[in-house]
């Protein structure tokens, strides 16, 4: 199910050249802001929770997920070089699975790790906040990567749709329409974080069971359907 060569090529496509710069800049910014906040405001649980929840989990994880998830397959389909990969004797689901693993790994390294570091800088893991948000970032990395990898195989405008989901649906609609929050990766991962932290600093609109079921269902279904899409891929010409 896992092909090292495909993985190596995907890593190179994701982290080669300038991509690594933007992927690295976001976590550095988060850590820099945490340092500033700690220096200005001192250790405070509420501040730490606000910063990690508002900036790390709500903005940084989805954006890195979009870049890694769609970047793992989108450019190849876009410039047509995916046919060289597809013409190799590899099962299409294997290709998708390998790319998913890579996308998840990249998203985790560039979003969950900085979240943990930022959490420790902000309040030294008081009330388990750093660990809880790190777990949330890890969990949502998996779901986002699977979701956006699927988008990458479905549409040429995957990045836009991914961002529309992450910014408009989760952030804008989620804050206005309570029902939209049930269908949001961010809330599902918050439910998991809620369980880890145990305190009342983190809250979610979704129950833990529902969240877990939905997370697993979305990840598995998205991966399966992406494999199906790749089996019957038609290369569209330039519009």
């Amino acid at each position, binding site marked *: 199910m896992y092909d090292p060569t495909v993985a190596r090529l995907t890593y190179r496509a994701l982290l080669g050249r300038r991509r690594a710069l933007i992927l690295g800049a976001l976590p550095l910014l988060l850590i820099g802001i945490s340092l500033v906040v700690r220096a200005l*405001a001192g250790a405070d649980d509420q501040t730490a929770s606000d*910063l990690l929840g*508002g*900036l790390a989990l709500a903005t940084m994880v989805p954006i890195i997920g*979009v870049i890694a998830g*769609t*970047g793992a397959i989108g450019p190849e389909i876009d410039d047509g070089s995916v046919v060289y990969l597809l013409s190799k004797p590899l099962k299409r689901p294997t290709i998708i699975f390998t790319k998913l693993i890579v996308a998840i790994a990249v998203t985790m390294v560039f979003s969950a790790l900085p979240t943990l570091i930022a959490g420790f800088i902000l309040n030294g893991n008081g009330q388990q906040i750093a660990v809880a948000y790190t777990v949330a970032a890890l969990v949502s990395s998996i779901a986002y990567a699977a979701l956006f990898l699927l988008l990458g195989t479905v549409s040429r405008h995957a990045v836009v749709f991914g961002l*529309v989901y992450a910014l*408009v649906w989760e952030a804008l609609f989620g804050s206005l329409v309570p029902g939209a929050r049930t269908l949001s990766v961010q809330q599902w991962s918050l439910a998991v974080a809620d369980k880890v932290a145990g305190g009342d600093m983190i809250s979610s609109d979704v129950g833990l069971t529902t969240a877990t079921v939905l997370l697993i269902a979305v990840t598995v279904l998205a991966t399966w359907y992406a494999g199906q899409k790749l089996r019957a891929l038609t290369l569209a010409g330039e*519009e």
Partner: protein
Amino acid sequence: MAVEHPVAPPSGDQTRIHNIGYRSYDGPRLGRSYARRSLYSQSLRGAYGLGRSVKSKVLPMLLFVVMCVPAAIMVAVAVATKASKLPVDYTEYAIYFQAVISLYVASQAPQSVSRDLRFKTVPLYFSRPIETADYVRAKFAALASAMFILTAAPLLVLYVGALLAKLDFTDQTKGFAQGLVSVTLLSLLLAGLGLVIAAVTPRRGFGIAAVIAVLTISYGAVSTLQAIADAQGSTSAIPWIGLFSPITLIDGVQSAFLGATSAFPGGVGPSHGEGVAYVLVVLGLIAASYGLLMRRYKKVGL
């Protein structure tokens, strides 16, 4: 095995150039300004998907509708309830819908310049009588105009609606004019930033992600820091933090000079003195993005 026959050398001087009747062009040449105007209008149409496939019309048109419909609803409510003022200020509108505006610039800036880089059409442009400055100006002006249409159309809806609802004419006109100044600055600023980022990469998808990352992360970081500064009681720091993201820059300019209420935490906008710094930073950023674009396209090899 094919035997290579040596090519027989041409005997004698039998080469000649046939005149097959090509005629040189002696019609009018439309020149540089015409080419620049065409590039401008094509880019502007392209920013709304006109003259492109149906698929590429969907997103810009959808975002345009999303911008205008709430304005129409607000006007309808104001007319129906005979309100004495509109539910939203002209200057506030763009700040409320910054996510939509960011998405628009992120999706259209790369389609304007990244595709030219990727399909290597830039050298073809420069083989016409246009120069670097013409290309940059045409693209910049086109995207800024497209953004202006996007942000000014809902204001126009609000203004017309307000006049139909027989609200105070001078009051509304003043607000409308202030709103127009603010969205003009916003359009120029975001178009410049978006184009600079998009011109770096030939990959459209990557350009979109980079633009949106710069816009949302900077706004997220700035507003978080402002909220923390507000909670800590250091209100004097709030305006200075606001200098570091495009949306808060515009917010600061309009609350200092255009009579807007600031969306900053605590509602403390910058004072007039700080507002001058805001204006300088905005104008500096616009000029800097123009300069960077000029530098980017100086070398045509790309």
